[in-house]
């Protein structure tokens, strides 16, 4: 089983080497003098084409996004419980199904509350 994670490790190493090598290659080529270096004002501007940006890129996001993030975290935690339960559902039998039904129906109350209070609507 752990061998499969070895492949993920190799993938990550290849990705890291790739990400480091790509900026290094032009840098080394320009140091060796293979690539000509003739900077002008347009080339070294941040946006070579398109419109110049206006104001700061730091904008304050709508506060409503945070509510969705909070609800996402809660249902994400629910999924963590659902996943092992689904793996062992055959061994657990009817008891496991009832157990999970109680778990989900308690959490559904929160979802219905969010629905009734119209917090999921984007005004």
């Amino acid at each position, binding site marked *: *089983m*752990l061998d499969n*994670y*070895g492949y993920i*490790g190799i993938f990550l190493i290849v990705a890291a080497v790739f990400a480091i090598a790509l900026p290094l290659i032009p840098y080394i080529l320009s140091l060796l003098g293979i690539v000509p270096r003739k900077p002008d004002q347009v080339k070294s501007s941040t946006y070579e084409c398109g419109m110049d940006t206006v104001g*700061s890129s*730091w904008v*304050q*996001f709508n*506060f*409503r*996004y*945070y*509510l969705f*993030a*909070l*609800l*996402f*975290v*809660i249902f*994400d*935690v*629910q*999924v*963590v*419980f659902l*996943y*092992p*339960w689904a*793996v*062992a559902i055959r*061994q*657990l039998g009817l*008891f*496991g199904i009832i*157990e*999970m039904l*109680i*778990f*989900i129906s*308690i*959490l559904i*109350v*929160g*979802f219905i*509350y*969010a629905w009734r*209070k119209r*917090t999921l609507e984007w005004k």
Partner: protein
Amino acid sequence: MGMEIAFWILAALGVGSALAVVLNRDIFRAALFLVFCFFTIAGIYITIGADFLAGVQVLIYVGAISILIIFAIMLTRQTQRGSPSNRLPLPALVIGLAFLGAMVFIVLTTNWHVVTPLPEAGPTTGAIALELFDPESGFVLPFEIASVLLLAAAIGAIVLAREK
């Protein structure tokens, strides 16, 4: 052997990114380094054979908690530069050192059950499920109460974050 090398690489990356979180002046970059730190911890879980825990780490910490942190930064006004905790360096140092001392003391004095040789690594998800959901294991009530805790968190979030 391969796992040991992977462990040390991941440990070095984890400690390095944790230091970057603390030392970075840009709070958004610090948050991104924190996400990377969570990810290396998931890798460490895999090297010790806890595959389910690694999946949970990625799902909860890398997926959800990091979204909360990044949203919290994006929602606040211009706090990009400078560290907001700069006004109380001395109390922070005292509390940090006390916490470090407590952690080192606990790690050194705990009687760790070191298992040699390593138990055979296999999929742990099914075993965890049987431990958690089986009626004889005694975790059924805590599991159901966990849903009440999550419900309280959901309703609390809605009440606090709803526009008046």
